[in-house]
């Protein structure tokens, strides 16, 4: 059994446990590489059928190429897709043109997520976060409860071991199910390569630059790269020593921005 087999097996186990334990499961999908691995794993877990809706929180600042990919993938995988925009915040004029990126991220992602959760009464949200992305994510559980205010009590997390998880929530609460927690960026790429998972073209170098992580257009920077294949990306990652989300402005806007975002419900 390879390391990727182990990771895949664990993720599938978690997805099946989540689907069994909760009445209304939704899976977040950003069209990014981790999200697409998540879709792939769900297809495998449920024998080719994804038995819950896939949610895209659309900030209205998406790259056009990502929107194209969204339309293609919906068709290709047969997704039950929910696209949600925080229209209320947009109406108030919240946007990168007028507001700081931490606030925009909060309004157009976290608040939007809260809205979609309330609208559809999800009690479990499957997310594609990984421990290696950020030091606050390193402390996550596979099944991570959030209270009705969306808060994450990271100081007193429930114990989780031997494949047993927190699978019950109180009224208004939900659980974040995080099947990719143990994957690293390189694992994701190796798995995409092994399984031939379709991905947006923006991850691959064009004119000497590529995107390592994809977010909102105004705050996502591409990086210098010549990697046009997954093999080349992996080789590049082996020697790079900058962090994956370095190109994501909202994380670095101020000290502890990520921690603040996450305590308020950001993924």
């Amino acid at each position, binding site marked *: *059994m*390879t*390391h990727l*087999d*182990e990771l*895949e*097996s664990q993720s*599938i*186990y978690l997805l*099946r*446990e989540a*689907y*069994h334990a909760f009445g209304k499961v939704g899976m977040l999908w950003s069209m990014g590489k981790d999200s697409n691995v998540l879709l792939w794993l769900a*297809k*495998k*877990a*449920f*024998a*080719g*059928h994804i*038995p819950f809706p896939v949610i895209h929180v659309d900030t209205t600042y998406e790259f056009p190429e990502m929107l194209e990919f969204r339309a293609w993938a919906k068709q290709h995988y047969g997704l039950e897709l929910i696209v949600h925009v925080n229209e209320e915040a947009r109406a108030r004029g919240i946007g990168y043109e007028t507001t700081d990126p931490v606030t925009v991220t909060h309004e157009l992602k976290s608040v939007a997520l809260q809205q979609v959760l309330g609208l559809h009464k999800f009690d479990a949200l499957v997310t594609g976060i990984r*421990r*290696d992305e950020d*030091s*606050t994510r*390193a*402390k996550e*559980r596979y099944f991570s*409860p959030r209270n009705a205010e969306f808060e994450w009590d*990271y*100081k007193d*997390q*429930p*114990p*989780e*071991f*031997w*494949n*047993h998880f*927190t699978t*019950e*929530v*109180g009224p208004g609460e939900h659980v974040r199910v995080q099947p990719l927690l*143990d994957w*690293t960026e390189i694992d994701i790429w190796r798995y995409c390569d092994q399984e031939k998972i379709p991905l947006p073209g923006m991850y691959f170098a064009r004119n000497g630059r590529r995107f390592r992580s994809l977010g909102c257009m105004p705050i996502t920077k591409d990086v210098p790269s010549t990697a046009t294949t997954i093999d080349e990306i992996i080789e590049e990652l082996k020697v790079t*020593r*900058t*962090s994956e989300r370095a190109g994501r402005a909202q994380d670095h806007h101020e000290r*502890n921005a990520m*921690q603040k975002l996450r305590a308020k419900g950001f993924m």
Partner: protein
Amino acid sequence: MSTPHDHLYLVVVGHVDHGKSTLIGRLLFDTNSVPDGKKERIEAACKAEGMDFEYAFLMDALLEEQAQNITMDTTRVPFRTPRRQFTIIDAPGHKEFLKNMITGAASADAAILMVDASEGLREQTRRHGYLLSLLGLKQVVVAVNKMDLIDYDEKIFARIRTELTEFLGKLNVQPAHFVPIAAKHGEGILRTSAHTLWHRGPALLEALEQFRATPPIEGAPLRLTVQDIYRFDARRIVAGLVEAGSVAVGDPIEFHPGGKRSRVKTIESWPASNFRGPIGAGLPVAITLEDELFVERGQIGAPPTAVPVEAREFTARVFWLHAEPLRVGDTLPLRLGTQQADARIVAVSRVLDAVTLDASLAPATEVKRHEVAELRLRVRRPIAFDAGGKIPSLGRFVLMRGRRIAGGGVIDSAVREDAGRDDTLPVTPASRTTLLGHRGAVIWLTGLSGAGKSTLSTALEQRLFRAGILPAIVDGDVLRAGLCKGLGFSDEDRKENIRRAAEAALLLADAGAVVITALISPFRADRQLVAELCGVRGVPFAEVFVNAPLAECERRDVKQLYARARAGQIPRFTGIDSPYEPPLAPALELRTDLEPVEQSLEKLFVLATSLAHETGTPFADSGADI
């Protein structure tokens, strides 16, 4: 079938402040696993706040942790050497965070146990050592840290090694190596320190590289834990995890609990199809069966020739993490694999001090947070498992309190197979025991009027009832008003009164109740007769002397009986003008004038539960024929 993976999960345990986070920071830094600028950024932040830079900060990125100098929660950090990839699970040592340590250590392949050379073994060194053993972690390296503080003294190092080897030996844990290090200065980590040339073993990283990722269990029969049944289309798919063995199309398969049998018709896979297997241990699987069986989540698929144990009662070693103690009689959801069933704590055989490894002598009634105990548990319906560590994942379970995992345990063995399952058999004392989860017994309270027999009997009745044990009371006053109406207080009538009380108690005990009698029963010979009757009928019996001096009983005189006796209104009153013969060797003597009711009650409860769970010949047949 499968090649061993080269990825090692590593847990770092040990007493608080013995240097775990510092070592991890150092391992990351020395293996070039820290992103550029991170060390410099933290150094700058430390300087701004007037603190010294510490390697521990590399990992402890959350601000408040740095403020408190303790690690909050389980953290996973990958690093690699040219030879191998590691993931460190940081398991903090602060006492109240034991749940995180277990959360981390339960999924590790190997452990570094850290000891501060200047402090030696401390409470958590031992506690964590114990838990490593309970969690089944066999690959352990001991890092003796802060060697710089003891001038790299070989003798102190050797002393720690001897002491810890002896302690861990009792737990069946043999460390692969003891390595002298000074994490703060990077000594002994990549290569043996120039200060410890006397050390003949490997440096820490070399020791770690020798460990193997936990291999899948070899040669075990199939264990397929069923997670769910999917009916998205015409197919009825049984989805689960292959915990051990392997499964292929055409294999006979039996599902436990229950034992329904079929054959594997197809393996459902995506995107590939028509895969016939075998699918090996550790992999997810989705199958359809040749027969339309009612298979459900929680069952375990196994070859008919090697099925798991099915039982309702078993003994286990349990560690408890919840603030509220685990008590005898508690009923909580138990999860084993994907099975869930309510489990009752039947008995706590002993509570173990994880630090000294001393066991409490008396049976206890509760297990407090962070204690380890040997328990007997009984589940409401049979569950399937593999005891004795053959297939570890199917021999361990968690207990839930509220929505949280509150404790974990490892099953040692099943207790006596259920006798009452075949419904063509007559109802026997043994099948009653199976139904109730305990046997009947007689607890005979004797003592002067006013000594506290009735008070204690009702209190014990409540306590037993709450603990899930069926209680019954045979009270002297009630008998005299009914079954024994017409009997007086002559020696002969007293004897007959006691005989009837004993027969009534035995009827109830035969039906499975734990009977508490509250009668003065002043004569030794009469009580001896009761003991013999119980012996013949195979019912556990205990004589309890509820003892308060006559003067005290007379002072209490709740029912004003002494006053009336003194006034000559009640003839032959025990203690006044009729003798009381105290027991010579009671199972328990309760001085109700010296100790509070709660204390007496607790002693009675321990006695009653031990009788109710007494093993040995359960009930002589003569009793069952009545």
